[in-house]
């Protein structure tokens, strides 16, 4: 219990720092890719500090409440993950958080956020199946590894497997990394809102958030980023301590890949995003799931 409390407090305090630094590094690397000098890596913190000092402009009162609920559920999902709780619950909390974001944006009834909200819902339709499939994949993989434990959705059980989950779930890994582009709001799929400074229609759901409200969305994004990268790490981690180091390297590589994709691709339309994402999910996730199910039943048959 005390251990869980320490982990939760550690997550709440440290995750924004890690997330903010990651975003700073992202902006620096992006700038170098475009042959610019780029801002210092502490820039995201300066931005958020400034935003909190701006006037709070909003057309209604529920916007702030809904945004705080969004932040709460993102932190809740992250805390659940790091104390080793149920992976399905983690992803459900994350979906709830996303719904609060949609409600906060649509509460303003402006055309720009209207467009952003519809695009955000499309993005959710693209990522949610893969998130749920990932949880199911981990569940099935935990039964495959000979750990003597039952199949489990608990993160605390998954990390004690004697084989890395990626050995059973390479297709799920590819699918999950693919939807991370949507989750991190990186370029080919940053339809609902973009990190890059842009016009209102591209800013979409965040277009009407001013000052502190926008800062809250930024902080929530840092929490979410850290949590999702930890899920990437979960694919690698097993009972061997060295695997944590490998997981960290894989996470760094995946993050760099996202930055590279962000800088080398143009924004697509929602229907193309839908087709590509579902294609990747069905091909990689679906085939992996099919093999996993059938191989395990074959193995049972021969035992």
């Amino acid at each position, binding site marked *: 219990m005390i251990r869980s409390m320490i982990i939760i407090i550690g997550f709440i305090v440290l995750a924004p720092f890690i997330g903010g630094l990651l975003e700073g590094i992202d902006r620096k690397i992006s700038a170098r890719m475009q042959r610019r000098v780029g801002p210092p890596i502490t820039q995201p913190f300066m931005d958020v500090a400034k935003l909190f000092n701006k006037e709070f402009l909003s057309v209604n009162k529920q916007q702030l409440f809904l945004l705080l609920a969004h932040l709460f559920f993102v932190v809740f999902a992250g805390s659940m993950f790091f104390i080793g709780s149920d992976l399905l619950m983690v992803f459900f909390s994350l979906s709830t958080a996303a719904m609060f974001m949609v409600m906060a944006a649509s509460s303003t009834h402006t055309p720009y956020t209207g467009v952003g909200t519809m695009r955000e819902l499309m993005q959710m339709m693209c990522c949610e199946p893969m998130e749920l499939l990932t949880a199911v994949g981990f569940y099935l993989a935990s039964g495959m590894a000979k750990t003597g434990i039952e199949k489990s959705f608990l993160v605390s059980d998954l990390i004690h497997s004697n084989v890395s989950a990626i050995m059973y779930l390479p297709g799920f890994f590819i699918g999950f990394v693919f939807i991370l582009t949507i989750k991190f709001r990186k370029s080919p799929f940053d339809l609902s809102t973009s990190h890059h400074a842009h016009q*209102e229609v591209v800013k979409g759901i965040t277009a009407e958030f001013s000052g502190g409200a926008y800062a809250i969305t930024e902080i929530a994004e840092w929490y979410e980023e850290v949590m999702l990268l930890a899920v990437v790490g979960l694919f690698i981690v097993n009972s061997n301590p060295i695997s944590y180091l490998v997981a960290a390297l894989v996470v760094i590589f995946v993050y760099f890949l996202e930055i590279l994709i962000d800088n080398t691709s143009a924004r697509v339309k929602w229907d193309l995003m839908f087709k590509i994402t579902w294609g990747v999910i069905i091909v990689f996730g679906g085939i992996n799931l099919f093999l996993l199910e059938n191989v395990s039943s074959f193995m049972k048959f021969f035992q």
Partner: protein
Amino acid sequence: MKSFHKSPWLIHYDASSCNGCDIEVLACTMPRFDVERFGIINTGNPMHADIFCVTGGVNDQNKDVVKQIYDQIPEPKVVLAIGTCACTGGIFKECYNILGGVDQVIPVDVYVPGCAARPESIIDGVVKALSLYQEKHEKMVKEGRGLPEDPALDED
């Protein structure tokens, strides 16, 4: 509030410029001048902006647009008139449709002259705007405005 010095976000509006100053404003964000190294971003969204950059003189058709963008920027905000036309109306001053400089419609804080204004002078203008922003912010805090429990929000 030192953080603002490192994170001023601009919104650029072309009132009725010949595009000379617009190109120079955009040149600031390009690799040669790269204002993002100072944390300056060209947002394009008034709700996120701190500094309002206007190029070109204001005419009858867009005076309401300029006013509306100004109203949508949350306090504290600073207005920059970039280029001779935005400062005074320039060579178009006597035209039947031109009202004059931007200050005919909204209060302007910093004037950046030049035809077209050089990227260096635009960056200088933004740096000038920072100290004004600081003053406005202190005034805002003293008057207790801009907080979520602002009574103005109860009107809905």
